[in-house]
């Protein structure tokens, strides 16, 4: 069963706290992505991971970092969260960087108070 799993589904944090969003996939995909989506807007790319320990900034990486120690897991970390990082975060994966079919997780709705 091809699946991208995100945890948690909802998260509320206070400004200045650290946040860890986790993503897993069971398809042995090389490439994984983190996006954020704000109300009424499209998807903005935060980071791309080409494989284990091979990560690259996307369009809006400031305030975020990522970790990929295993192919099936890709984490998004917010060190000292800010209120403007309140958003819905989506993880996605694709077979490799040249394979255009994206598979998305169900999203994490993060609220930073």
């Amino acid at each position, binding site marked *: 069963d091809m699946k991208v799993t995100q945890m948690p589904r909802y998260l509320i944090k206070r400004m200045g706290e650290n946040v860890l969003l986790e993503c897993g996939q069971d398809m042995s995909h090389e490439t994984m992505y983190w996006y954020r989506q704000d109300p009424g807007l*499209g*998807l903005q*790319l935060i980071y791309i991971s080409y494989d284990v320990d091979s990560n690259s900034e996307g369009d809006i990486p400031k305030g975020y970092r990522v970790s990929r120690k295993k192919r099936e897991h890709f984490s998004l970390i917010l060190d000292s969260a800010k209120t403007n990082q309140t958003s*819905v975060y989506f993880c996605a994966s694709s077979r490799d960087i040249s394979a*255009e*079919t*994206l598979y*998305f997780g*169900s999203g994490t709705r993060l609220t930073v108070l």
Partner: protein
Amino acid sequence: GDQVEQSPSALSLHEGTGSALRCNFTTTMRAVQWFQQNSRGSLINLFYLASGTKENGRLKSTFNSKESYSTLHIRDAQLEDSGTYFCAAAYNRIFFGDGTQLVVKP
């Protein structure tokens, strides 16, 4: 995004009618993917096309790489078709359109 222009930004349909959504590209894309974001916020894969036309039920999508556009046709719209539709096109990376908000009314 700048590389992908999606239109219309919003669309209202009555049940049983149909329409077309369109994405224009500013450069030659290798492939396009269409998603529906439903009321729960989940992004559902509809189509992936490297060329030509695909059909699935009441949905049909076409990708014309040479003329730099893709369309998504919806016929006999149902209430559950409501949501936001995104196209995503691949060049050296994946570029998303800003989406079309579709509301299907009884």
